[in-house]
């Protein structure tokens, strides 16, 4: 069930995405630590859209699988894409280099992390966090 959809075109939209993610996570009764993880991941990945693709969208959905409940968040853009995903998922890109992609870090914050991307064809990242 789709809870929120946020279009990213301005820096303040990153803030909106965070706030919506916070609301969703809180309403689903995630622990405060998990809420923080989710909101931080949303902040990182939305910022990537803003920085690398200028526009894109973030969709926050409630999902279930059997008795599990959780949140699924999709980050999509039509930007330049990531040429070498394996490299981008390596450690060196996120820590200390500042405006790195933050991908490996974000991956650690969530339970599922799927990324598809092609040069000039945009990027799509789907993350899931279960209660």
């Amino acid at each position, binding site marked *: 069930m789709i809870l929120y959809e946020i279009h990213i075109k301005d820096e303040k939209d990153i803030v909106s995405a965070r706030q919506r993610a916070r609301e969703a996570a809180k309403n689903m009764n995630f622990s405060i*630590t998990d809420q923080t993880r989710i*909101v931080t991941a949303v902040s990182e990945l939305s*910022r990537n859209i803003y920085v690398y693709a200028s526009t894109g969208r973030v969709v926050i959905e409630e999902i279930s699988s059997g008795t599990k409940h959780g949140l699924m968040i999709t980050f999509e853009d039509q930007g330049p894409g990531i040429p070498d995903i394996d490299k981008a998922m390596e450690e060196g890109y996120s820590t200390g280099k500042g405006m790195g992609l933050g991908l490996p870090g974000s991956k650690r914050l969530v339970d599922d992390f799927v990324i598809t991307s092609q040069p000039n064809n945009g990027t799509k990242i789907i993350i899931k966090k279960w209660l």
Partner: protein
Amino acid sequence: MNSVPMFLINKILLVSLQGEINDNMALSFQKSILDKIYETGAKGVLLNISQLDIIDSYLGRIISETARMIQLLGAKAVLTGMKPYVAVTLEELGLNMQGVEIAMNADIGVKILEDYVKASDFEEISAEDLE
């Protein structure tokens, strides 16, 4: 223009980071702190982040940069008020906040800074003691 609240007490600058901090604000608060240190000769900066619910890689980088800049001016920066769930998330994200000294609470932070201020100041002795 939104400026970060700062108080100067006994050569220690108390700064509270709060609310949403975007690019412009980050650079301008960085500059405000540095200017204040330069103008007043402040020797210590207590960066209070107890109002921050999340710290993403962008903000983390700004904080760590600011601490390094403060050091360059010959002053000392101490971070205080880090929430436990923020600490966990930062660690998972892979941000190590290098170069920033972190104090468990404001009292300890202030004590650390007072010691530093004292060391950089002149001891006073009376002429009689010299004899």
